[in-house]
């Protein structure tokens, strides 16, 4: 199909043609950016936590005032929970990855004299944590029982400046190891916390996401050999087979209430719910953007249908003449399809530039990353397809114009 006659026809409808091009360009630019934003949200929602997510349940208890012997109570609880059928592992910790309740973080330095911390990492405290969470050690070993320190003892030691009373060892994620000692073996190395408290690295786990504040580095987490009690605000984390979760949760709550009826169950839930709540906003925004893209494509398609119908009705004479001079229906159909393709292509080319500009604006104001080149063809293909689909109806109507129209006066 020859493009030149099309261009010269469009030249006579300059204004409407440009409006269509502008509309396609805007749509293309918005679709590119919106798809990119959706991709960002999905990527965030898919972040790996490094724990056996579908096998964990969490129970948090509330205490009234000071319980006299929280430590003994905790040991009794842990022992009782292990007896429940289906329970594989039990741990006690404060926060899990990706939770909305809170988190605790610490600054890590390579050198005690350093003014600024090298990185900010999440702290995971609690006994028997790694086996329960199902977090995989890739180097080194887990904590020995003798290395554990009680939380209150550790805090007291810290306040007296007694480094002996603090835990001496730590397990870190591979991400921290790579950041602190790139390309080297982290085992046996020393890192410093706070005002220069030394810890020796005895193990490295493949992955363990932090509680929140993901912008500080999702994979920056540390595990400390510190025992907690449920009075410290820690919650029981139980690992069991995915299908047993409901039953185990129920049995565990009943058991804990039976051991001390004066406690209040603050939270009893499967880990899946924790993660779902954490990413609820991202999911909602992705959904809304999908809705907006759909509305946008529908509107653009309607616009193309409208203008194409207008052109077809304006050119009935011309079509009739062409048909009378021997053009087939296919020729007429292809004429309008090619015309739309030409307009869409110009629009898409402009749209790419615009997409880039919008991305620059978003980067400036909303801390978004640069739009990767892969998203440009997405917008282009979407608009070529929409254009061809939308023009099909008017083009078919044009093809149906009989040659006899040429001989009729108005």
């Amino acid at each position, binding site marked *: 199909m020859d493009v030149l006659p099309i261009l010269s026809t469009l030249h006579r409808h300059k204004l409407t043609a440009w409006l269509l091009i502008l509309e396609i360009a805007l749509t293309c630019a918005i679709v590119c950016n919106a798809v990119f*934003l959706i991709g960002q949200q999905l990527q965030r929602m898919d972040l790996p936590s490094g724990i056996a997510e579908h096998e964990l349940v969490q129970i948090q208890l509330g205490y009234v005032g000071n319980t006299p012997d929280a430590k003994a109570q905790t040991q009794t609880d842990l022992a009782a929970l292990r007896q429940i059928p289906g329970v594989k592992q039990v741990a006690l910790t404060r926060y899990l990855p990706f939770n909305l309740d809170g988190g605790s973080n610490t600054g890590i330095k390579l050198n005690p004299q350093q003014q600024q911390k090298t990185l900010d990492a999440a702290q995971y405290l609690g006994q028997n944590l790694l086996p329960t969470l199902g977090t995989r050690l890739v180097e080194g070993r887990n904590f020995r029982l003798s290395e554990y320190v009680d939380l*209150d003892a550790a805090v007291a030691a810290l306040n007296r400046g007694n480094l002996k009373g603090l835990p001496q060892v730590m397990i870190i994620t591979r991400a921290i190891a790579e950041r602190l000692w790139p390309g080297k073996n982290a085992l046996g190395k020393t890192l410093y916390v706070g005002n220069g408290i030394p810890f020796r690295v005895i193990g490295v786990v493949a992955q363990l996401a932090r509680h929140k504040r993901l912008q500080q580095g999702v994979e920056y987490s540390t595990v400390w050999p510190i025992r907690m009690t449920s009075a410290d605000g820690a919650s029981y984390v139980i690992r069991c087979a995915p299908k047993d979760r409901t039953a185990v949760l129920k049995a565990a709550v009943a058991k804990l209430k039976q051991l001390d009826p004066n406690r209040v169950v603050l939270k009893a839930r499967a880990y899946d719910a924790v993660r779902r709540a954490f990413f609820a*906003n991202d999911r909602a925004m992705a959904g809304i953007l999908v809705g907006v893209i759909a509305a946008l494509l529908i509107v653009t398609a309607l616009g193309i249908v409208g203008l194409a119908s207008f052109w077809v009705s304006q050119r009935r004479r011309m079509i009739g003449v062409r048909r009378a001079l021997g053009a087939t229906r296919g020729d007429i159909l292809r004429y309008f399809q090619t015309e739309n393709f030409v307009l869409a292509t110009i629009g898409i080319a402009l749209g790419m530039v615009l997409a880039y500009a919008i991305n620059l604006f978003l980067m400036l104001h909303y801390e978004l990353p640069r739009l990767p080149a892969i998203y440009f063809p997405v917008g282009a293909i979407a608009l070529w397809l929409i254009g061809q689909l939308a023009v099909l109806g008017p083009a078919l109507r044009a093809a149906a114009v009989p040659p006899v129209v040429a001989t009729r006066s108005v």
Partner: protein
Amino acid sequence: MFGYYLELAFRSLRRSLGLTVLMVLAIGFGVAASMSTYAVFRAMSGDPIPWKSSKLFFPQIDVWGPASRQGGQRGDGLPADMTYIDAMALMRQHRAAQQTAMYPILPTVYPDDPAEKSRAVPGHAVYAAFFAMLDVPFRYGSGWSSADDGHRARVAVIDSQLNQRLFGGANSVGKAIRLDGHSYRITGVLADWHPQPQFYDLANSNAFGPADQVFVPFATAVDQQLPTNGGMGCGQALPGPGFAGVLSSSCVWVAYMVELDDAAQVASYRSYLNGYAREQQQAGRFSWPPNTQLRDLSRWMDQMGVVPPESKVSLVVSFCLLLVCMVNAVGLLLAKFLRRSNEIGVRRALGASRAAIASQFAVEAGVVGLAGGVLGLLLTWLGVAWMHGVLPRQIAVLTRIDPSLLWQTLLLAIAATLLAGLYPILRATHVRPAMQLKID
């Protein structure tokens, strides 16, 4: 004349029904998409206390020094909370018109009826001024007095929901409530009051969380060692053991709010805060120059990121969508009006002025806009219903269609269509009558 134009408009719209339907659909979709996302945005960023938001201020003090800040923090990186020490000092010096320190609590309520389960209820420990500062509505009774604050009285204010559960909704003022094993005298029952975003303690609480059900005096809560239900930020030094250790630590966990009635008060409070920080520096507590902030409620909400950036971005995207719809409407209206050059030529030749032509087409554009608006309303209603499915529940309940959203939607549709119609109308008025009459 208006009636005649209206009739002409309907006749012309009926004649090219396809094009009309397309235009109405396009405007409807555009308006609906923008208004639905706007409804969410409005729900999240709405001013929860419009009559007072410019008088409520939230001070911040740099208690950890510049070394604690290193990338990643929101805004200027000052802690959103205060230490107990600073909050108490500011309360004692009492420099604002009204002020309150506060922290979230989660005491367990023991019902007198043993058949009822005991339950943990969210609440806040606040000063007496809190209720007056926020114009908190009471169903029965009132807040406690500052004297109660002074001698750490065991008094409490409960919300209507808790009152319903414990006392069947009866006037419970003067009755006792057991919180964490101690008995408190109820001085007031709130009417339904659940501001969202929950603005008074953004530092510690979820802006779209459940309503506070119980309030007790701050000093009493500290006396009873009620732990905070919020976060505790501890910088470099961890607190000593026990509740006393927390109180004397440099951990931040107390939110602080002041009421300042005019610009002079704001300025003097600002310099007072700076002076306070300088005193602390001179006393050797801080080894860095004073760094304080005082933000009013709307800036504070901004600072605390009440509206997530994703929601702002989707608002931008959907207003871009509206722009596309307007470009679309320009194109379609142009097609529609220019198709009728003949009619315009005849009317002009018969003596119609340009203004008359312009008003005729403006009426037509307005009718299209109104129809688009009505369709847009319907689609907005669908859109909001759909969003209730995808949004987190706390935000979904806030996102609703109310009269103001209704007329805003209609107004937006008509204004957008008229704006889009400006150029096509201009073109229509410039049709030269002689040319049109000659051709046929």
